């Protein structure tokens, strides 16, 4: 069985064109990937390195002027029990990432959730609707500017007879 550290350096050299930086914290490796390369990177990781399981896709709001949002992917290799995190930075001016639902079907709902909570669009997504909030809801609740108490009138109550 190959050691995970060897695999990581192999991934690093294979993906060097798409890799922005890598990070090791508390035993977890994070690769920052160029936004336009995410689908090809995921395809390569799945076919060449056996990352056949997408555990999670999530968004975060860094609340910065540049590259405000992050989309984070948690990948697993179920045979070797490897874990890898990919991060894509998304700028507020271009709120769109290519979908990875063609690589793993799990991404379908997970990306819908990210869209619902942060308003990040996923190009070529098969069914990009809101996951939890009502379809006509106007705001993106997990963005930092959205108040905890909610916005009055954003979900209208049924009218009284």
């Amino acid at each position, binding site marked *: 069985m190959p050691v995970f550290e060897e695999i990581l350096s192999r991934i690093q050299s294979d993906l060097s064109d798409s890799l922005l930086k890598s990070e090791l*914290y*508390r035993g*977890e490796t*994070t690769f920052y990937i160029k936004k336009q390369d995410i689908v090809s990177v995921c395809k390569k990781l799945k076919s060449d390195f056996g990352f*056949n*399981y*997408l*555990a*999670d896709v*999530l968004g*975060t*709001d860094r609340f910065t002027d540049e590259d405000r949002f992050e989309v*984070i992917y*948690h990948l697993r290799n*179920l045979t070797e*029990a490897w*874990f890898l*995190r990919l991060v894509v930075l998304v700028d507020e001016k271009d709120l769109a990432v290519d979908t990875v639902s063609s690589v*793993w*079907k*799990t991404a*379908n*709902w*997970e990306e819908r959730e990210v869209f619902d*909570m942060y308003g990040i669009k996923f190009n070529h997504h098969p069914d990009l609707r*809101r*996951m*939890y*909030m*009502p379809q006509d809801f106007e705001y993106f*609740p*997990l963005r930092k500017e*959205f108040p*905890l108490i909610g916005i009055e009138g954003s979900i209208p109550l049924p009218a009284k007879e």
Partner: protein
Amino acid sequence: MPTEKQPKSTDDLLRLLEDEHTFVTLEGGDALDTEMVINMGPSHPATHGVLRIVLKMNGETITQAIPELGYLHRAMEKLAENKSYHEFMPYTDRLDYMMPYSNNVALCLAVEKAAGITVPERAQVIRTIACELARISSHLLWLGSMVMDTGALTLFLHTFREREKIYDIFDLLTGARFTVSHSRIGGLASDISPETISALKSFIKQFPAQVQSWEKLLNRNKIFLQRTVGIGYIDAEMATDMGLSGPNLRASGVKWDLRKKVPYLKYDSVQFDVPTSTDGDSYARYYMRILEMYESVSIIEQLLDRIPEGPVRADYAKQVYPWKSEVYHTMEGLIHDFMLTDWGVCPDKGQVYHAIESSKGELGFFIQSDGTGHPWRLKIRSPSFVNLQSLPYLLEGSQMADTVVIIGSLDPVMGEADK
């Protein structure tokens, strides 16, 4: 001989249908050939909560299924960003409300990983025991309700009798029967008492015989087999691609269990099997959970005899709460308690993800810390949410009556799926 008739009105139709020898045709052809759309839920006894599914039917066959979630969305992740890590603990009880103890532990393990806190051995063993007990209790409720979905009410009463005993043990261990909130960052709220240990011992002594008696009732029960065998089939490759986890994934033949593959707590020091099957149908998913209950009992049995002596909470006042006796009687204790409540556990800046094997599958907490006492971002990877995603795949092509069985065999909990 069936006679063919044309109904003149709805009343006429209902009257005609009462006669089993009458064959009714509607305008537009055979009623079983026309497509119709059925709305199921969100308040439906068989959807295990507030799941809504819109089904497109061709006669009795489902051609398309669209699950709609969000009817129990309580914005847990938004709340977490505005609370300290300790304050968020009781919310996790309400995630997967079938097994609150494991959710507490999952959050604690993630925060401890982020903050680099080492938990004493004794606390880890007690956590492992309680997590397995929670798994049994969750599987008990699932078994009762899933068998009820196939039409048998009796077993629910049997499983709930056993679950009641587990509630009593949790009451002894934690002081609460259901929403326990017993785990603390860095340890536990209270130690295990000899009374709890003896209650646990007497429970696990009689419990396997109970499961065996239920197996006798179900394993070769013709009605149960007809309702589950071959129903809702999913193969290993598709299950992995869809992100199924827990017993649902193992029923399709993927031997993946976080307790074995990425050991946490004390799972690397106990002997247990990970049951797998290659059948991939509702019956396999049922049988995996039955076998898991035996394994859980065996894990508890092994650990009960070797609970090490020592403290159950780490002695590190900067990040772990002091005992109440210290808070009330020493100045330092009071200051530390005050500081922790006011500032909270402040993990270093960075991001961590920790997942446990809950009874539903991979329950993970992702924490992005900015160095303050509140998480900058806390994401819950809920197994029920991801498991439910396979529902359209499982339902399409199956019969209307199998819907409830397939939902039941997936074991979704909407509190967790909707967050």
